[in-house]
C-alpha cells in the first residue's frame, strides 16, 4: 500500500464518520432536550459517557446533536461562501477592470475587519439566531477563495493555448468548459473543503459569544457558553468533552481537505 491508496481509504472512512454523526445527531435531537432532575450534574459514567448538566440533560446526546447541527451549518455556509467566491472571482476576472477594481475593494473591506467582528456585525444585521450565523459566516469567508479563482482565471486567460483558442474562434462557452473549468475546479473544490473547518469554528465562536444560535438550540457554542458558569464549581466535563468532540470533527474536515489538496496537486505527491 502506498500513500495515495491510504489517502483514498482515509477519505472513505472520514466521510462515513461525518455522515453518521450528522444522521445520529438528527435522531437524538429530541432526546437531547429531555430534562430529568433526578440525574443532575452527574460526572461521566458508563451510562452517561459525557456526564449530565444541571438540568439533567445527557451531555453525550446534546453533544451529538450539537455536532450534527454544526456540520450541517458548516456545509451550508461553506457552500454559500464558495458560490459567492466563485461568482465574484469569475466576475472580477472576466468583466473588465472596473468590476475587478470594485470587487477587489470589497475584498479589502471584508478583510480589513477581523473575521469574528465581521461575523458578529452581519449576524446583528440579520437579527442573530440561525439566519444571523449562517449569513454571517457565509458572507465573511469568501474572500481568499474569490482571489484564488480570480488569479487562476486571469493567469489562464494569458496562457498561450487560451490566446490561440480565442484567435481560432472557439466560443467563449466552449473555452470555459474545455480549458478553464478543468483547471479551476480542482483548486476550487479543495478551497471549498478547506472552508468547512473555518466555517464550523466561527459558527461555534459566534454562538459562544451570544450572537448566534439561540440557547434553546443544541449547539456546541451554546453548551460551552453555559458551561462557563459551572466551571468554577468543578463541572469540568461540561466543557471538556463537547469541545474535544468539536475539535475531532474539525480535524477530520481539515484532513479531508489536506488529502484532497495532495491528491489534486501532483507536485506535492512526492513529499
Amino acid at each position: 500500500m502506498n500513500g495515495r491508496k491510504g489517502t483514498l481509504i482515509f477519505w472513505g472512512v472520514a466521510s462515513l464518520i461525518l455522515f453518521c454523526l450528522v444522521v445520529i445527531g438528527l435522531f437524538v435531537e429530541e432526546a437531547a432536550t429531555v430534562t430529568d432532575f433526578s440525574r443532575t450534574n452527574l460526572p461521566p459514567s458508563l451510562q452517561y459517557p459525557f456526564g449530565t448538566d444541571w438540568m439533567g440533560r445527557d451531555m453525550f446526546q446534546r453533544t451529538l446533536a450539537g455536532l450534527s447541527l454544526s456540520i450541517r451549518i458548516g456545509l451550508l455556509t461553506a457552500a454559500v461562501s464558495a458560490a459567492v467566491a466563485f461568482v465574484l472571482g469569475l466576475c472580477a476576472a472576466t468583466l473588465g477592470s472596473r468590476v475587478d477594481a470594485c470587487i477587489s475593494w470589497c475584498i479589502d473591506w471584508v478583510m480589513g475587519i477581523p473575521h469574528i467582528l465581521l461575523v458578529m456585525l452581519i449576524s446583528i444585521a440579520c437579527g442573530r439566531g440561525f439566519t444571523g450565523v449562517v449569513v454571517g459566516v457565509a458572507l465573511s469567508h469568501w474572500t481568499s477563495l474569490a482571489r484564488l479563482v480570480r488569479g487562476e482565471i486571469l493567469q489562464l486567460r494569458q496562457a498561450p493555448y487560451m490566446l490561440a483558442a480565442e484567435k481560432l474562434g472557439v466560443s467563449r462557452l466552449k473555452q470555459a468548459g474545455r480549458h478553464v473549468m478543468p483547471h479551476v475546479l480542482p483548486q476550487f473544490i479543495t478551497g471549498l473543503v478547506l472552508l468547512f473547518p473555518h466555517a464550523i469554528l466561527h459558527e461555534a465562536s459566534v454562538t459562544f459569544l451570544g450572537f448566534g444560535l439561540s440557547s434553546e438550540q443544541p449547539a456546541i457554542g451554546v453548551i460551552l457558553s453555559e458551561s462557563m458558569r459551572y466551571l468554577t464549581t468543578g463541572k469540568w466535563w461540561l466543557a471538556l468533552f463537547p469541545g474535544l468532540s468539536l475539535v475531532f470533527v474539525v480535524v477530520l474536515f481539515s484532513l479531508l481537505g489536506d488529502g484532497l489538496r495532495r491528491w489534486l496537486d501532483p507536485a506535492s505527491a512526492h513529499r
Partner: protein
Amino acid sequence: MEPILQIQHVSIDFTQYESRKGTSRRCLQVIRDLSLTLYPGQVMAVVGASGSGKSLLAHGILHILPYNSHMRGEILYNGEPLTKERAKRLRGREIVLIPQGVTYLDPLMKVGAQIRKGRRDEASRRMSREALGRYGLSPDTEDLYPFELSGGMARRVLIAAATVEKPRFVIADEPTPGLDTVSAGRILAHLREIADAGAGVLLITHDLELALRIADRVAVFYAGETIEDAAASDFADPSLLRHPFTKALWHAMPGHGFRTIAGAQPYPGTAERGCPFVSSCVDCVDKCREAEEIAPRYVRGGWVRCLRVQQDTTEAGTENGDLGEGMEE
C-alpha cells in the same frame, strides 16, 4: 596517465506517481548504464537534448540528488570510489560545479559573501577578489546582489565562485545558454584554461557546436543513454562517427546542412528494450528492436551502442578495461 574520474555503469532513477489521478508509483529511469572516463587536462563534453536528465549526472557525481531519486553504479575519483562522505569532503574544494545560471545564487546575498561562503578574513577576501579578477570582473562586483548582474556577468561570477580554491575536477552544467556568441565563447575559453591548468572538465551541454570548440572528447547522450563516445576530432568528418544518431547530429549542425532529425526523442526510461533510436534511424533492422541490451562496441578509439557497427577485433578484449581508450597524451 591516471584518469581523474571514471563513471561505470551508472543509472539514476526517479520515483514518480503514474498520473494525476493514478495510485501507483513507478520508477523513471533518467540515466541508464552510463560510463565515462575523464583524464586531467581534458575537457569531456556530454552532449544531449535539453531535458534529457544530463543535469542529474552532475548532481549524482556530487551526491546532491533530490530525495526521490536513486543512483546505482560506481564512480571512481582518482581511482578510489567516490562515496557520499568523500564527495561531501571534496565538493566545493577539489570537485566543483559550475551551474546553469543566476538562479543558483542566493538572491538576497551579496556576490562577495557568497563567493567567500561567509568567511570574512582578509585571505578569503583577497582570494575572492582574485577569482573575480581572473574573469575580468572588478572588485566592486562583490557588493552587487545577483539581480544586479547581467547574464554574462552571472556566469563569470559562478565560474569565479567555483574556482576560488584550485579545483581538480570541474563539472560545468550548461554554462552558456542565453548568452550571445561572444560571451559564450569567452565562458568556454575560461573552461579550456581551467583544463589546460591541469584540471579535468566535464562539460554538460545541449550545444554540440559550442562543445566541439573546446572539447577533447564527446559523449553523446540519447534518451538517458550514452550511445557513443568519440574523440572531438572524429567530428571533422561524419564517416569517422559511429552511431546513426551522432551522424544525424553532425548533419544537423549549421555548417553541415542544417538537416533536421526525423522523429522525436523518446522520454528517458520509456523504452523497454531495443535501441532507443529505432523510430528515427535510417539503418535499423529487426534485431535493433528486439535486443534486450546493446553493449558498447569499440571502434576506432571510441565506442558505440549500435548493433549495425562492427567492433574492431583488435580491441575486443578491452571490454572491461579502459573505456576511454585512445586518449594517448
